[in-house]
């Protein structure tokens, strides 16, 4: 009986160690300052995204994604990045705070922009 309890404990500890921690869904450590959610942008024009990542995110740089595809890297935790030009329609723009190993350390901040 004691052997089985001990074995169960070992299995539980092993499962805990092997299971990756789950990143927070919404932690608001990264913010897109502009453009605003739902902003209307002009087609075939380069826009500027302003962002900020709080120190608590323990990030080193950010990745910029347009419709899920990486478009640029920002080496500041508060700054701006040019993006576009984009085709007409709705586009999802996200920034992902990452560490030196390009691994996300906090939740992405995303907006949807409408391009006309």
């Amino acid at each position: 009986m004691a052997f089985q309890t001990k074995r169960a404990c070992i299995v539980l500890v092993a499962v805990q160690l092997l299971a990756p921690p789950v990143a927070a869904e919404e932690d608001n450590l990264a913010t897109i300052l502009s453009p605003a959610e739902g902003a209307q942008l002009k087609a075939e024009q380069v826009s500027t995204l302003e962002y900020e990542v709080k120190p608590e995110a323990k990030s080193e740089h950010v990745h910029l994604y347009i419709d899920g595809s990486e478009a640029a890297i920002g080496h500041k935790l508060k700054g701006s990045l040019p993006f576009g030009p984009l085709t007409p329609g709705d586009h999802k723009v996200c920034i992902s705070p990452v560490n030196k190993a390009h691994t996300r350390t906090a939740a992405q901040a995303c907006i949807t922009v409408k391009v006309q």
Partner: protein
Amino acid sequence: MQLENILYAGMQIAHNFGAAAMAGRPIAALWLGPARTTSRTTFRKIALLTLFAWLVQGASGAGFGAVSFFVVGELPEIHHLALVALGVKIACAVLAIALLGFKLLGALEAASEKATLISLAGLGSTALTCAAILRWFS
């Protein structure tokens, strides 16, 4: 101090020493010239140490990914140019380990010691160049 920082730093230490050794040893051997490095015993020692360095590179490289996944909870976000650079690095490691393995087992007599060292220096330099691309692009 965060656990992931300690683990990343440990991987980085191994990766840095491995990088210096896997590229530096064959280049140094070529620099010193055939008189000092092409005796069978000396070449074998250089080959063994270089093989160990490449194995350290492979293990510590995989270690970065393991720390990201198991400690931080995410796999690295690597795309485009950085993904190509990672692929080339892995290919260099596989080729170098295979070359050294065959050479040490005596199954590659056709390749001279000098040709082997030149190949290793080339593979090491290529891997180091790709490491810089992988670091600054993603």
